[in-house]
């Protein structure tokens, strides 16, 4: 157990996986460069050799197919892209091949592939460096989708992803890379498909994922002073979705807010609301709500992104309104950090 950052935890998970299984390989643009994909792949080439850890051509589609081909013949491949947005070039391979193969060949083949995609945001990432498309992947039968929210989870979930016999889309929010927590040593795994209860409370359920869990925690703390205790569920896996944990929380609180880092229409949040509305309607004491990014691309300008992201005050505000608590001013009490476009001083442009 040691206190390390999310990025180091990713790095460690890969190291552990590569140490215990020589069939694990790891590549991606910049995997072996001096920056090592925000530090997450630093030192791997030195340790495991350039046959197993390598840079690649800017050929996202073919390199995904190469990963699939390697994976169906017994390798366990970890491929990383510095932005999810670049991976749009590889949708044919991930959807028509990776996601389908096990089913379509009746179990003859399976694809133990982990695709690490880094979600951008802040510092003027703009419209094509900031997309959060988890709902796309969740919509495709055959894929698993994971979104860790802490250093500890990053390690445990990544190790499970790597050794999962199916293709896993592993989404890392860059704003988490420098956050840290106690992370168990060695081959530490957290099962995919199980959510984590971060906080227990009876008044309101918050379902969250990835970086938004950090914001939700701030909101939860703030809400306490109004006597509101929230049940905070971090999804960990987007697919398979741990609907049972959500349902059981809803059955207790009767009130729910689902957060999502992606655009609103056809989001994971809207899907969860639909599942609850169709399956356990009677549990609702009040109408459910969601907080997602708007159906708008992310603009670049510093000023245009002010107030653009979901943050603690939005979460608190939503819940206060739902509970009709009027003597609160969350936007004043939890002001947007200045500058608002970085998670902390460590996060510098230009990239």
């Amino acid at each position, binding site marked *: 157990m040691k206190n390390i950052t999310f990025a180091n935890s990713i790095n460690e998970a890969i190291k552990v996986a590569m140490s215990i299984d020589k069939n694990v390989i790891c590549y991606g643009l910049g995997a072996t460069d001096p920056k090592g994909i925000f530090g997450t792949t630093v030192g791997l080439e030195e340790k495991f050799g350039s046959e197993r850890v390598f840079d690649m*051509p800017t050929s996202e589609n073919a390199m995904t197919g190469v990963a699939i081909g*390697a994976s169906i*013949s017994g390798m366990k491949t970890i491929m990383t892209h510095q932005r999810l947005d670049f991976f749009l070039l590889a949708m044919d391979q991930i959807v028509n091949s990776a996601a389908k193969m096990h089913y379509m060949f*009746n179990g003859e083949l399976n694809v133990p592939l982990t695709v690490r995609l880094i979600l951008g945001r802040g510092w003027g990432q703009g419209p094509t460096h900031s997309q959060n498309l988890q709902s796309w992947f969740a919509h495709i039968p055959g894929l698993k989708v994971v979104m860790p929210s802490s250093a500890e989870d990053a390690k445990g979930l990544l190790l499970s992803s790597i050794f999962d016999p199916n293709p896993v889309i592993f989404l890392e929010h860059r704003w988490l890379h420098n956050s840290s927590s106690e992370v168990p040593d060695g081959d530490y795994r957290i099962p995919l498909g199980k959510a984590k209860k971060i906080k227990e409370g009876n008044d309101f359920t918050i379902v969250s994922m990835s970086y938004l869990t950090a914001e939700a925690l701030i909101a939860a703390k703030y809400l306490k002073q109004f006597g509101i205790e929230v049940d905070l569920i971090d999804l960990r896996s987007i697919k398979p979705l741990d609907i049972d944990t959500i349902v059981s929380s809803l059955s207790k609180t009767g009130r729910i807010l689902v957060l999502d880092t992606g655009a609103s229409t056809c989001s994971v949040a809207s899907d969860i609301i639909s599942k609850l509305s169709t399956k356990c309607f009677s549990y609702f004491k009040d109408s459910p709500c969601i907080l997602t990014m708007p159906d708008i691309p992310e603009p670049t300008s510093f000023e245009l992104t002010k107030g653009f992201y979901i943050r603690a005050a939005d979460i608190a505000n939503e819940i206060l309104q739902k509970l009709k608590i009027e003597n609160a001013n969350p936007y004043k009490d939890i002001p947007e950090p200045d500058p608002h476009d970085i998670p902390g001083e460590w996060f510098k442009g230009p990239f």
Partner: protein
Amino acid sequence: MDEKDKFKLIHKSMFNLEENQNSEINEDIIKRTYYMLKKIRSVEERIAEEYPYNEIRCPTHLSIGQEGVPAAISTLVNDHDYFVSTHRGHAHYLAKGGDLNKMIAEIYGKTTGCAGGKGGSMHLIDKQKGFMGTSAIVGNSIPLGVGLALSNKLKKKNSISCIFIGDGAIEEGVFYESLNFAVLKNLPVVFICENNLYSVYSPLSVRQPEGRSINLLAKAIGANVAHADGNNVLESRKVLKEIITKIKTCESGPWFIEFDTYRWREHCGYQFDNHLGYRDENEYLAWKKRDPLELFKKNNQVLIDYGKIDKFIESEIEEAFRKSKTDPFPEKSEAYQKLYAE
């Protein structure tokens, strides 16, 4: 040993590379090559005969006219080598030793099919034989073949990966990206392009620049290349053998081979379609004169008794269709199974 058993033996030993790699063309190879050539032709023709009865209910792309290359390579690879192929994959599946019964059953959507009925004609698989699947998306299986070669290289296996594609797949960026990577990493892979001049109804002229040589294009990307007459089976085999040997013994890196050939029937389905006017009847007739099967027989007249092989094939096919037709369909509940590997 009666004739039938003898041929079975041929069939069984067909994929034993060690035995045959260095042998010159001999009677055994002639027999086995003919067997595959004729088998592919006869299987495809039987499918064409059965298709109109509406029991085969999936898109089906026949290789009639294009049996030369698959037959040529069938005696050059073993179960540790990999094949990946396309929508037009029956011939490659059979050439790799894929189980005929399982292929026909798959086309009929039966539970005994190689993909349990889930994949159909466009999704054949025989992992034991190193046949790692076909794809219904043009170009889609190319990088998979490269990934298989990467895996072989990392595991230091002395095996190759063969990627079958058509002339249309050349137009997909993924072909270019995949070949670039294969060359970069010097992978043991052969790209086998069966250039049949058409993609569905579209001639090369509406898809690729005039004067384009596909194999020279591949060469500029960095592959070693060859170009051969895909309807001349023994020539094709010679080229393939040399190249496979080079890859396996000298780690020569990726090769790209363009084989000229021609599809006789419609792109998808069982009928002849020259009347549609997308290609010239004379072009078709000229290619038909260069039937790989007839050419092969003409060039190897005295050596073997083709009739016996034909009979054996007939019985295999008869059995495959008889079984496939009567084999059970999968349970409906199977549709909801095996989404994820456990």
